[in-house]
């Protein structure tokens, strides 16, 4: 029995090298199935690189990543894993519907899925309007909608809530929770620690290393701070006070 059968993602001894140094080092990490796991950390800490490694688009120096029981990036996973990049990967010179219908056809999803994701993500759906005329946040939502089309078992979402108004942000976190209740696994990155409270589990990444792997409540108990941002600061300063 491999760990992959119990966890959505299992990482062992992972290193990603860039410019002669390890930009991500993860000796061991598992992400449970059916939950929303937040990948938190400041920009530049390696969140995107780690996500890319999990999706299998990142060249890695060493290590092993199992996703849903198969090696990361292997062909059978492509229909089961959905990846939303940080930059909205949609065609600026097509309308919202044309973008989504295209991705739906590639994924083998019907037009009713397009209607469903447009409603779920509240994608602006103004007739004939090209994606390039949308705001940054609106484009990000089109990109998110495209990932949801194929109903993947694992969703890897790189900063899906950045630049959105607070109301919409809450709605998206509620949507993520609903998807997890429906059996999907979500790995969601954010540089904003105030979003940590929406996650079932937290991973705090700093300088390419996972400092914290805990639930929000566990972290609160462990540090004695109710505010998660304070809790993170406590963990980081405690670690940096002790020379390695």
């Amino acid at each position, binding site marked *: 029995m491999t760990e992959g059968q119990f966890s959505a993602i299992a990482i062992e001894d992972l290193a990603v090298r860039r410019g002669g140094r390890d930009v991500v080092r993860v000796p061991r990490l598992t992400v449970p199935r059916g939950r929303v796991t937040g990948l938190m950390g400041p920009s530049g800490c390696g969140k995107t690189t780690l996500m890319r490694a999990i999706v299998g688009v990142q060249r890695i120096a060493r290590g092993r990543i199992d996703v849903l029981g198969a090696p990361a990036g292997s062909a059978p996973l492509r229909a089961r894993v959905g990846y939303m990049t940080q930059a909205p990967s949609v065609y600026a010179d097509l309308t919202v519907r044309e973008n989504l219908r295209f991705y739906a*056809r590639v994924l083998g999803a019907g037009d009713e899925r397009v209607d469903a994701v447009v409603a779920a993500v509240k994608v602006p759906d103004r007739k004939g309007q090209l994606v390039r005329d949308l705001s940054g946040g609106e484009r990000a939502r089109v990109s998110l909608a495209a990932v949801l089309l194929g109903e993947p078992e694992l969703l890897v979402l790189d900063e899906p809530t950045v630049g959105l108004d607070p109301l919409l942000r809450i709605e998206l976190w509620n949507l993520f929770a609903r998807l997890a209740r429906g059996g999907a696994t979500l790995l969601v990155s954010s540089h904003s620690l105030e979003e940590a409270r929406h996650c079932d589990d937290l991973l705090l990444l700093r300088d390419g290393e996972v400092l914290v792997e805990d639930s929000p409540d566990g972290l609160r108990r462990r540090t004695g701070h109710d505010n998660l941002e304070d809790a993170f600061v406590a963990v980081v300063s405690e670690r940096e006070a002790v020379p390695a």
Partner: protein
Amino acid sequence: MTPRITFAISARVLRQLRHDPRTVVLLIVVPSLLVVLLRYVFDGRPQTFDLVGPGLVGLFPLISMFLVGSITVLRERTSGTLERLLTMPLGKLDILLGYGIAFAGFAAIQATVVSVVAFGVLGLDVAGSAWAVGALAIGNALLGMALGLLLSAFAASEFQAVQFMPAFVLPQLLLCGLFVARDQMAPALDLLAGALPLTYAYDSLHRLAVDGTLGARGTLDVVVLAGAIALALALGAATLRRRTA
């Protein structure tokens, strides 16, 4: 490879073009205007027009599809949509064929319009069939697209991609025999021309214009062209990497 996905990609590429009507008009009208220009440049020497006309009619699609192809694929690479596609359950062949079908379809329209203007309106006279010239033009458009797709991997911006036209296509145009017969060039250049795909594209058109049929030599040209398209697509496929640094 999955036909559903291949055609979805073709339809998407054409839809992107449709949202850019000015580019479509330029792609279709400019070659015809250039042939009109050529006709009156050679006003006093109609036999020269008949000699170089088919070459230009057949090579325009190569040049324009090289540009459109390289920039469309470059945008796909830089916008992240290519990376997203490669994380989805599709084959690289779907992407290549999807682009190929879309551009061949568009090139067919382009070649038809310029052929009607050249042969119908301007009275361009070829010994061979005008249909054959049109068919070669579509083949050349595919070669242009395949080369553009391949070279887009080496461009970091649209500025660089556009520069590949004078850097990569223009020398081939100078060496292909259109301006000066190859046997009058410096021997080294003649040898170099023999290694460039555009030479074969031009030579096959030239056979049709002068001899009226492809003949053995022209048939060989077409085989070399088909090989060049396949090679450029294979090399292009190698630049579509699922895993990057």
